[in-house]
């Protein structure tokens, strides 16, 4: 049995923005991945001490899973429908039906149970997104945005991945666009709104755990940990955790800064607003500084450099300063100064 449509696979840096950009492009509105990311106001920072991941606080460099799908739907007025299922068999049947209707279907699934992932990348992360665009025999034709080429996935494995339980469980979540993408979207207006909404989260939230103040809290926490006499092992563990949250989960903390920079650059060309060009440069600097942090923290953890919490704190503060510089320019993106 073969069903499905001609679909252009495109590799992306991040799964959710990749799925959305490919789906919207397929529906007739060409949209780059950075555009999908920026328009959904997905850049973030959060340090949440009361949500623990293997005993360490949650550190996030972007908005939580699902924010790009929902944000883009609202911003562009997409005719997107999303379903979840209690019964795996019903979930697979609905997928088959959508495919035979010629739809390109987005799915949320667990990375661990997807057999096409390399062994070392298979962790229990339930909020991975991918596109299924057809069926051939017992295999589904999958466009997984983080892969270079389209892949295939056997039915039983896909069912298990969709219905894996645990944190962020998907419950077989599936979504698609009903009909073509809307026409006549005023992109400059939506870009302006998206940036201002993102500005509120990053630069104006009065909470010590989110945005720029969250970054500074992280910096202070590193120094505080280093002063605890009993905690010689705790600091390297915390640093390793930060780096892992930053570089390994998804596209990484710096990666999201570069993606947002790419969005600003593209938006600058589209709107002609000069502030966006300058802010793109500042955001690139911030991304570079996050990478520097990961590099030095790793060196210190491995003992190739003496452990100096003060230095690492300074690097994090620099990250915050550079992002602050970018967000200052973005407070009123459309203004010509």
């Amino acid at each position: 049995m073969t069903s499905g449509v001609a679909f252009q696979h495109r590799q992306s840096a991040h799964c959710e923005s990749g799925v959305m950009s490919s789906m919207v492009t397929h529906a007739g509105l060409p949209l780059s991945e950075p555009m999908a990311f920026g328009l959904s106001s997905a850049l973030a920072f959060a340090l949440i001490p009361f949500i623990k991941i293997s005993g360490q606080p949650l550190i996030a460099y972007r908005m939580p899973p699902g924010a790009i799908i929902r944000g883009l739907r609202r911003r562009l007025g997409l005719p997107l429908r999303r379903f979840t299922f209690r019964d795996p068999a019903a979930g697979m049947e609905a997928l088959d039906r959508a495919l035979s209707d010629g739809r390109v279907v987005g799915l949320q699934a667990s990375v661990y149970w997807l057999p096409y992932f390399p062994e070392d990348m298979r962790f229990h992360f339930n909020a991975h997104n991918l596109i299924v665009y057809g069926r051939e025999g017992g295999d589904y034709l999958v466009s997984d945005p983080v892969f270079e080429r389209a892949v295939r996935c056997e039915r039983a494995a896909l069912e298990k991945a969709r219905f894996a339980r645990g944190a962020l469980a998907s419950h077989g979540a599936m979504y698609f666009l009903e009909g073509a993408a809307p026409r006549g979207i005023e992109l400059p207006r939506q870009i302006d709104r998206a940036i201002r909404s993102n500005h509120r989260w990053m630069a104006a939230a009065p909470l010590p755990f989110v945005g720029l103040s969250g970054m500074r809290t992280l910096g202070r926490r590193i120094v505080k940990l280093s002063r605890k006499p009993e905690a010689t092992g705790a600091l390297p563990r915390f640093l390793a955790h930060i780096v892992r949250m930053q570089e390994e989960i998804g596209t990484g903390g710096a990666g999201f800064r570069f993606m947002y920079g790419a969005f600003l650059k593209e938006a600058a060309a589209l709107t002609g607003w000069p502030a966006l060009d300058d802010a793109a440069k500042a955001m690139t600097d911030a991304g570079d500084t996050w990478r520097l942090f990961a590099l030095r923290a790793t060196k210190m953890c491995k003992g190739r450099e003496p452990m100096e919490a003060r230095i690492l704190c300074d690097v994090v503060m620099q990250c915050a300063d550079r992002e602050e510089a970018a967000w200052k320019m973005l407070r009123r993106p459309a203004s010509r100064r």
Partner: protein
Amino acid sequence: MDEDQVPQDASPTYGGHRKLVYAVDRDGSYVGVRSSGWDVEAAATGAALAEIERAKSDAWERARDGRTSPLEYYMHLRRMDLALLSQTTGFSRWRIRRHFRPEIHARLSKRVLARYAEALGIDAERLTRLVELP
């Protein structure tokens, strides 16, 4: 990050794949560039994998010596911890911990074993035996 600074460290954790990252080209515009890995990221992934590997072989040794049940080994084999196994099976943590006791594990009913088999993706019959090597 400039286009030519995109790390190409051929990380073993990528299994021959390349990831896409955004970088700045000579004209100052952003382009997508494929990266074969970065040593810093590989170190973070490697440390997490080593931790899982250590827990797995430790559980295997204890199961071989009869100090835990094969279930604990299979949990680590599937890169799970007690919290995740509890969420995926619906059994409480203390109940699972009890099932780690070999004498209790040996008497588990077919239904309970089937729940573990489903969550771990391992045949119920295999769950009662330990593999030869970790």
